[in-house]
């Protein structure tokens, strides 16, 4: 095709190419094959994302579905007569006497007034068990804050027992045979009667956010675990951020490059991969047994979690320091800034976004840690809200673990509700990391 159309050309001259090799038929086939491969690759990527998203949606959806009911709690409206004689106190009783008075009697009397035909002792006990065992304490608190209630009658909403709550929410079904049901037919009849009186209502479950743990599901709350988590996390942040940043700055800027430093770097990277329960064992052996620190306290928990998150903070901080362009360092050094001034005034501020992101991600990781904290004793059943770093406490993930272990049906939905609270915290922390990072980057 080339020389045929050009007679007279000498054989030694370069033969001009008539067609570029990129426009031949074979090239066309290669192009179509490549485009098909790219389409397949793109589709595979989209499929992977879809599967991942699908899992996330299923996970979140199932947790929300299971846990949403825990945010409401059945209450019963009873007419409580604060009768001094029923309480067993005089009209001018002291606060101490009032605190010791017989408040369950008030509840029993209110129920008896509504259902006067209940006479059998067992039946009377069943009737009283419709109301939570914490209800009398609610009455005591009310009277303690308002003495004028003594002698008066009020229509009050009291927390119902967890079995009643489960029945009202449909988790205990009346179709189940009576032998397998936790509520016998008489109790169901009473609940129906109260419902037709409009004395049964599902209200917002404030206990979940105000109280500590309890064996009674309707009284169980997350506040103790939340405070424990807050104390632990704050102390962990205060310990791990300065230590991690200082270590990273030293290793990256000041340490002489030598074989010893390579060993240190390898060890730090390996520590980031150590299972967290090992840190719990370390905390048990060193902090609790050797240093005699109080078991199950936020102090020991934060020490253990600091050790665990330190490698993460160090690695993220070193990467952030390395990303600062050397032209800034050269400019600062060339102006007569010392190495320390260069790092403090120029390198650190520029690497702060990366350091903060790494730290907050490390904190989010620490928030969800259970295994090491079980090792240091946070598995105990604690009712009180921790007041300080040295008092026994528990954290949210451990609380979830304990509730997941409990047999009562009502704890199943509360476990999912606690998981939702934990996830909200985690999402909030990660969002804060993103916002902080954007804010710092925009300023420069």
């Amino acid at each position, binding site marked *: 095709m080339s020389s045929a159309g050009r007679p007279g050309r000498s054989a030694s001259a370069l033969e001009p190419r008539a067609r570029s090799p990129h426009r031949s038929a074979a090239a066309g086939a290669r192009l179509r094959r490549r485009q098909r491969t790219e389409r397949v690759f793109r589709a595979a990527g989209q499929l992977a994302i879809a599967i991942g998203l699908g899992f996330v949606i299923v996970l979140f959806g199932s947790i929300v579905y299971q846990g949403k009911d825990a945010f409401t709690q059945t209450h019963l409206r009873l007419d409580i007569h604060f009768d001094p004689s029923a309480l067993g106190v005089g009209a001018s009783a002291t606060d101490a006497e009032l605190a010791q008075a017989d408040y369950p009697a008030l509840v029993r009397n209110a129920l008896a007034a509504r259902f006067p035909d209940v006479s059998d002792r067992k039946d009377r006990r069943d009737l009283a068990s419709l109301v939570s065992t914490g209800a009398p304490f609610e009455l005591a608190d009310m009277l303690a804050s308002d003495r004028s209630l003594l002698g008066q009658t009020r229509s009050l909403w009291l927390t119902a027992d967890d079995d009643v709550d489960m029945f009202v929410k449909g988790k205990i079904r009346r179709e189940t045979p009576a032998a397998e049901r936790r509520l016998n037919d008489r109790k169901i009849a009473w609940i129906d009667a109260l419902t037709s009186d409009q004395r049964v209502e599902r209200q917002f479950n404030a206990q979940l956010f105000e109280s500590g743990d309890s064996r009674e599901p309707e009284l169980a709350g997350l506040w103790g675990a939340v405070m424990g988590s807050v104390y632990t996390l704050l102390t962990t942040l205060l310990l791990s951020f300065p230590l991690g940043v200082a270590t990273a700055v030293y290793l990256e800027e000041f340490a002489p*490059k030598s074989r010893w430093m390579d060993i240190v770097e390898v060890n730090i990277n390996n520590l980031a991969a150590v299972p967290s329960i090992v840190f719990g064992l370390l905390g048990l052996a060193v902090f609790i047994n050797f240093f005699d620190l109080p078991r199950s306290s936020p102090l020991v928990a934060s020490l253990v979690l600091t050790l665990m998150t330190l490698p993460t903070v160090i690695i993220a901080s070193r990467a952030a320091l390395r990303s600062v362009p050397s*032209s*800034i*360092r*050269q*400019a*600062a*050094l*060339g*102006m*007569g*800034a*010392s190495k320390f*001034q260069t790092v403090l*005034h*120029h390198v650190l501020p*520029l690497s702060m976004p990366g350091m903060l992101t790494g730290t907050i991600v490390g904190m989010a990781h620490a928030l969800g840690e259970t295994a090491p904290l079980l090792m240091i004793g946070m598995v105990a059943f604690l009712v009180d809200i921790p007041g300080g770093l040295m008092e026994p406490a528990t954290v949210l993930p451990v609380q979830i673990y304990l509730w997941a272990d409990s047999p009562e049906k009502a704890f199943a939905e509360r476990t999912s509700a606690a998981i939702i609270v934990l996830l909200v915290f985690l999402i909030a922390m990660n969002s804060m990391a993103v916002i902080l990072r954007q804010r710092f980057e925009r300023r*420069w």
Partner: protein
Amino acid sequence: MQMMNMDPIAAPKSELAVEHEPPHERHSHRAPKLSASTPEQTLGEIHAADAAIVSRTVSVYYGTKRALYDVSLDIGRNEVIALIGPSGCGKSTYLRCLNRMNDTIEGCRVTGDIFIDDQNIRAPDLDVVQLRARVGMVFQKPNPFPKSIYDNVAYGPRIHGLVRTKSETDELVERSLTRAGLFDEVKDRLLAPGTGLSGGQQQRLCIARAIAVEPEVILMDEPCSALDPIATAKVEQLIDDLRANYTIAIVTHSMQQAARVSQRTAYFHLGRLVEVGPTREIFKNPVHQLTVDYITGRFG
């Protein structure tokens, strides 16, 4: 503004008085062109009458690789000396020796002596921080700090304790920016970030930053190579204005620029100082064959 003159031979005559050496030390300027191998001794006049910087047998090693071979050179006070040569010939390496920036490079070893005003800056107990305040540097790519223009210029004086009050700082910033020819353009936006300026303005900001610490010497490592011709012309004019107060050593790839701004020129080749002399003489009558080849553009 100086007219851009492409003819290296028409460069302004040097005003530097060359010291009269004893006859046996003087190299012949009219000798025939020598062979193309690098000489053991530098041709031309390495000494200067009133030397601000004196270097003797300076060598630099990067690990085992040698980058500079026994460079001896004087840089006179208030003169502009241009260091020219092909890529990788060691001129930037030599420049960085003068403010000991080579110390920041791993594995870099410097031998020889460098005296700035009779003080040997290669002494191990020298305070490098103070040296770098006396010998400022402007880099090839403008690198203002990611701070405001005001803070860029004020940073050096603050850390060296040159200013105490805000009014002193204001005055120093204004003076430095005016000397760098930038004040009129930025006086309304001193708090704007320095990185928001154009390339030429950024480089002049870097120069303002360097002179704010009141150095004696300014080292410039190809300051105009990243700038357009108009910005280049402004910076070259600035160099000429600065000459009255500072000693300037400028590394440049452009022979035309060397001819425009400098009074003396030093030609480096493969780590050796081949020839040095008044700019006009170097470009009009280069002695060594390598210098001739470079000037006429046969390589480099």
